[in-house]
Each structure stands twice: as C-alpha cells, then as structure tokens.
C-alpha cells in the first residue's frame, strides 16, 4: 500500500481494534524465561548474562536501599532496547516514538525519585539545588535555575527518547523515498543515497541501543542523588 510519512507513527489498529497493547507487550515474547534447567539454552544463557551485567552496572553506584529499584530499571532497559530495535524493521510500529508513552514512563519514575529524596533526606535533596562553591550574590539566581532544571527533567527524558527515535525513523523514511524516486531517473545518485541509507541504518541501530541506556542511566543518576 502507499504509505505517507505519518503512517508509521500512527497507533496501529486492525479493523478498528487497537493493536497498541500487542505492540507494547510483543517484545516480552522474545525473552524466554529460564525455567528450571541448570544448563540453559544459548539464548537463555546470553540473556541471563546480559541482565546480570546491566543490573550490576546500574546498581553499583547505589547503596543497599537503591537496590529495590533493580527490577524496574533493568526491565525498563530491556523493554526500551527491544522496542527500539524492533522498530527498525520495515512496516513496524515503535511505541517509543509516541511522546505520550515516553512521558508516561519518565514522569512517574522521576517523580518517585524526587519524592523518595524529599521524604527520606529532605535537606540533602534540597541541597542539590545549590552547587558547592557558588559566590554569594549568585545564589538566588542559581536556586531558580537549578529548580527549573530539576522540574524539566521528566520532560527532557521523555522528549529526548521521542525526538531521537522519531527523527531517526523519519530520516530513514525520507532517504529511502529519495532513493526510490531517484531510481528511475538517476540510478547512480540513487545508489549513493542507498549507501547513505545503509550508514544511517547502522547509526539508527546504535542510537536505539544508546537511547535506551541513557534513559535508564539518567534515572539511576537521579536516584543516586536522592536515595
């Protein structure tokens, strides 16, 4: 069918049935649960090794109290990684291109870190609003600036992920359209555009993985400040 540039970003539905839930939960099918075998299959071994690595890396800077967040942060990381990577396949829908979903992920988690900090160690959390060693006249302005930076964090988290993925997908669409359009008139230029598309695809794979990691890393950093 003839696709416009908006079709890959619209929420999928089949005969009026919204498929967004399937789109969001499908990646979970790709991670088999280990079962009760001692020597597991290759896929299970690799995924266990990967989860161990991610959890260790995320939880190392945190103290014991922060380890309660291990499950949600690791599952968030794996979810984002898989949805981003699967979205690179043709004719797929990437849920993380929707700002609504990313804000829904970022806002509650960020708010949880802030509230944890304010409840358990209020003065330390508020103290983060003023960096050390600022000259006295600058203090009021700096407090305002730091507060703004604190409040903008969920927006930044959500919009960063959305913008990166949407931009990447859009670029892929545009350049492949250019390749298709140029193919009949100037095949050589079309081949050059194809080469660019190849490089862009590699970049998009990297961006997909990095953005997932950055999202979770920043959340863990906010947690470190406040726990």
């Amino acid at each position, binding site marked *: *069918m*003839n*696709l416009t540039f908006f079709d890959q970003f619209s929420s999928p539905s089949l005969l009026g049935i919204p498929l967004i839930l399937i789109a969001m939960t499908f990646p979970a099918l790709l991670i088999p649960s280990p079962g*009760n*075998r*001692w*020597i*597991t*299959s*290759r*896929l299970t*071994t*690799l995924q266990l*090794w990967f989860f161990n690595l991610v959890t260790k890396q995320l939880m190392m800077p945190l103290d014991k109290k922060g380890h309660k967040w291990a499950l949600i942060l690791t599952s968030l990381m794996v979810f984002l990684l898989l949805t981003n990577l699967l979205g*690179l*396949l*043709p*004719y797929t829908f990437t849920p993380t291109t929707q700002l609504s979903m990313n804000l829904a992920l970022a806002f509650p988690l960020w708010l949880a870190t802030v509230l944890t900090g304010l409840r358990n160690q209020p003065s330390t959390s508020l103290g983060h609003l003023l960096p050390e060693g600022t000259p006295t006249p600058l203090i009021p302005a700096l407090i305002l600036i730091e507060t703004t930076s604190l409040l903008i964090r969920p927006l930044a988290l959500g919009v960063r992920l959305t913008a990166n993925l949407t931009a990447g997908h859009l670029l*892929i*669409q545009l350049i*492949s*359209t250019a*390749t*298709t359009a140029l193919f009949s008139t100037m095949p050589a230029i079309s081949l050059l555009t*194809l080469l660019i*598309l*190849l490089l*862009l*695809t*590699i970049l998009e*794979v990297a961006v997909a993985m990095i953005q997932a990691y950055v999202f979770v890393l920043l959340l863990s950093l906010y947690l470190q400040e406040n726990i």
Partner: protein
Amino acid sequence: VLHTTRPLHTTQQGLAPLPPLPEKGGEVRHGLIPEEFFQFLYPKTGVTGPYMLGTGLLLYFLSKEIYVINHETVAAACILTVIIYGIKKFGPEVAAFADKLNEEKMSGALAMKNEAIQALQTAIEKEKKEQWRVEGHSYLFDAKRNNIAMLLETNYRERLLMVYNEVKKRLDYQVAMQNLRRQKEQDHMIQWVEKNVVQSITPQQQQDSIAKCILDLKALSKSAQAAV
C-alpha cells in the same frame, strides 16, 4: 476425544526429572525456512521446487501489486543487510561465548566433584599406608625391647665394675696399711739396733778404735802417694 483411561495429573509435573534438551535446534535453510519444508516438497518437485515456489510467489505479489514497492522496501533492504551481516559476522562468536559460559558453569561443578573424588582416594591410600605401618609395629617393638635390654645390661655391668673398683680400693687400703706397718716396724727395729749398738760402744772401745784407725791411716798413707 478424551482418553479417560489415561490418568490426568497424578504427579506434580514440576518435580519430575526433565528430559534432556536436544543438542541442536531444528535444521534451517537460509536461516528462516525449516529443512522439513524442503523435504516435504522434494518427492513432488525435486530440489528446485521450494525455490520455484518462492520465486513464483514473490513475482505474483509484485506483479499483482499485492506487495507495493515503496520506500519501506528500500529501508527493509538496508536493515536486512545490516542484520544478516551482523549475524554472519558475529554469530559464531556469540554462540561460542554462550557455550563458554555454560561450559564454565559445568566445569566448576565437575571440578568440585573430581576434587572430592581425589580427596577421598588420597584418604583411602593414606589409610592403607597406616594399615601397612601397623603390620610393621611388631618389628618396631622387638627392636625397642632389644634396646632396652641392652641398656639394662650396660647399666648392670657398669655397676658391677663400680662394685669391683670399690672393693679393690678397700683391699688396697688394707694392703697399704700392712705394708706401712711392716715398713715402720723394720725402720724402728733398725733404728733400735743402731741406737743400741751406738750405746753399747763404751768410751774405751771408742778410743781404741780411733787409735786403730789412725794407725791404719798412717800405714795407708805410707803406701799411697797423692796424685797430682
């Protein structure tokens, strides 16, 4: 049809020993299509059958525009190139890594088992050696007994010698005493005899003897000449 003669769920399934996992996954051609499909078509269409089917299907979709070539096709080509390149290049390494992880797990447990077996075997050998040692104990005790007997004998002989020496010392003392007494008696007797003799010489006798001596000396002096 439910076979009611077969009992359902009589044991807890989770506790039963699991069948071992198959060594390899199902055979796949071109990474996507199971080998069984090719075997299924082989009797009727031979080796090229599935490929003809695939080509025919593809051309059918393209010509009837059931699949439209649009920009997604190009994007699909690119991402598929990247994926296939990645799998071909890094696939064996990743598989080897997964196998290595499993192998390490297994080898840890195997090493433990082997060490336990080794330790027990060493213990058995040590025990056997101890038993062999016990057999030799009789010789050890004999030697010790001999030693002690020798010591006792030596001690006894030493003491015997000591006794002999002491007795000899006492006897020597007695002998020396007797000799001394004899000596003293002799000396005393000689002295007494001499004293008596000297006493018995009267002055007359003394003068007579002195005169005689002088006469003798004169006589001798006549015959002897002094040697110069």
